[in-house]
């Protein structure tokens, strides 16, 4: 309640959220590929996320009309899919596979090593904004378990001892 009042009062000074020309063009390019513009919803959210790191409430409000749906509908889509971030994340996102094959090859030790090294738990970001840690379901790389993604890069098999070296290139 108090939060919404504050936002209302501050609205006059707050910068108005606008999509960049590039974001807008990329979204409209995707919209053209489908019989119904809303089919580009997920792609639109991914485009915004690619440019800004995450998808804010303001971005939802601005993007929804491009897709011919209400902000509430786009919000419903954004909150459903696990690869769409609704909060700011670090410069690099670590996604640890926690499915059965990685469970059997020791992902829990890998996860614990990450938690200890980074000093954060799942869903949290390091103070320097470098890493966010998340779990993810089976990465389809079970022959390389225990595995994880750092941004789009697959790493595995990884032991807890190899964690430091794996993180090193991601500044």
């Amino acid at each position, binding site marked *: 309640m108090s939060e919404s009042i504050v936002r209302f009062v501050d609205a006059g000074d707050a910068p108005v959220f606008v999509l960049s020309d590039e974001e807008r063009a990329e979204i409209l390019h995707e919209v053209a590929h489908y*019989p119904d513009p809303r*089919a580009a919803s*997920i792609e639109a959210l991914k485009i915004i996320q690619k440019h800004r790191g995450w998808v804010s409430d303001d971005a939802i409000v601005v993007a929804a009309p491009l897709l011919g749906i209400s902000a509430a509908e786009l919000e419903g*889509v954004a909150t459903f899919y696990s690869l769409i971030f609704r909060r700011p994340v670090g410069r690099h996102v670590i996604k640890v596979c926690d499915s059965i094959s990685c*469970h059997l090859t020791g992902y829990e030790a890998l996860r614990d090593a990450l938690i200890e090294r980074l000093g954060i738990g799942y869903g949290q970001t390091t103070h320097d904004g470098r890493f966010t840690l998340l779990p993810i379901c*089976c990465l389809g790389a079970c022959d390389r378990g225990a595995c994880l993604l750092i941004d789009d890069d697959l790493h595995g098999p990884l032991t807890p001892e190899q964690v430091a070296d794996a993180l090193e290139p991601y500044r």
Partner: protein
Amino acid sequence: MSVRGARDPEYRRPLTRLIDRAVGPLDRAGYEAENGYGALRDVIARLEPPALQALIKDSNLRGRGGAGFPTGVKWGLIPLGPDAGTKYLICNADEMEPGTFKDRLLMEQAPHQLIEAMAIAGWALQATSGYIFLRGEYVVAAERLNRAIGEARAAGYVGKNVLGSPWSFELRVHTGAGRYICGEETALINSLEGRRANPRAKPPFPQIAGAWGRPTIVNNVETLCNLPHIVLNGVDWYKGLRAPGSNDSGTKLYGCSGRAAKPGCWELPIGTTAREILEVHAGGMKDGRKLKAWLPGGGSTDFLLPQHLDLAMDYETIQKAGSRLGTGMMTVVADDQSIVSAVRNLEEFFARESCGLCTPCRDGLPWSVKLLRALERGEGRHDDIELLGKLTRWLGPGMTFCLHAPGAMEPLQSALKHFRAEFEAGVAPQAQPQPRAVGAGLPAMQR
């Protein structure tokens, strides 16, 4: 007619014969040099859609995504004829079944094969557009497929007037953003349309009213990749690829992961025994451990035991043994690993990935997780095992909107059957029977 593949002179591994990971995928010219797109030329020149559908039905090709439904029968429900209008072909490339990593190989290493296969299926159905619904994490596959589609479009294999025929077929890659439930075909259609991936009620079946209300076929990557080879070499050759004694046709991409010495994915005759997959191809168990239990084809299949290793890995045989072939990608558990812990891990997965649409699934799966975590810590109550048994029925087939929860119950019910003593060991010694108030057992959402 027969075609000889350069890298597999015997041509017994049609789907992977051109794959050499050290070299990477063939580009269009390289694929064409191996008679790539020859099958597409064939069908457009000589095989009318009904005849092609009949050929695939005769081949007894069954869906490789997990359900094993005959592809020709699925196709048979799609309306044909000049008035049929807009129709969609969707490739289910949302590979997310725990323990499964076969479609990734086919898409990363042989993208043109999938594109040719989709064009052939598109022709059989007279589809107007195709979408490859690709999971968001498969960025390498997305890049290679998009490049290959560009090459194929430039050569007239997809796009307007395919190979000069009156038929046009647009093909696009659509990438997802996570969530296992997108692999369920009606949830996948909702996701493609830009909605939450909740499953849809059936009927109407997608063949009648699917994407954007139009007739739609959803086929798995591996299923589709069989098509060019059946067209080029015929039904008899295709059936002859199977292992002796199997009633299924063709080859299968099998795999083995978990505590295997050399986990991997191999194309083998369908009906190859699980023992051959584990002991010959995967090098047996790691660290000299003994096999305790195995999932034949993903997290939603029932556990089998070492005594089942000599069974043929085909649809009928594995079903008769009380499980499902699923994706055919085995996961092996070693004798020093806890089944309760493995099942807890599986149910955590299914609980997190439930779409939340129907109550038994949304609330029942976290409940099973809560019980399993207690048993794993040795803090189970005396009636927890009985309660888990009830959950396998309350979340079983017919009790939920889709097959997500029934699938989740398969490893649980089989673990309870085969390893009951391990669950009993998790009951706290001092746990006494306690009356339970109505509703008191309802769980908070996990975490």
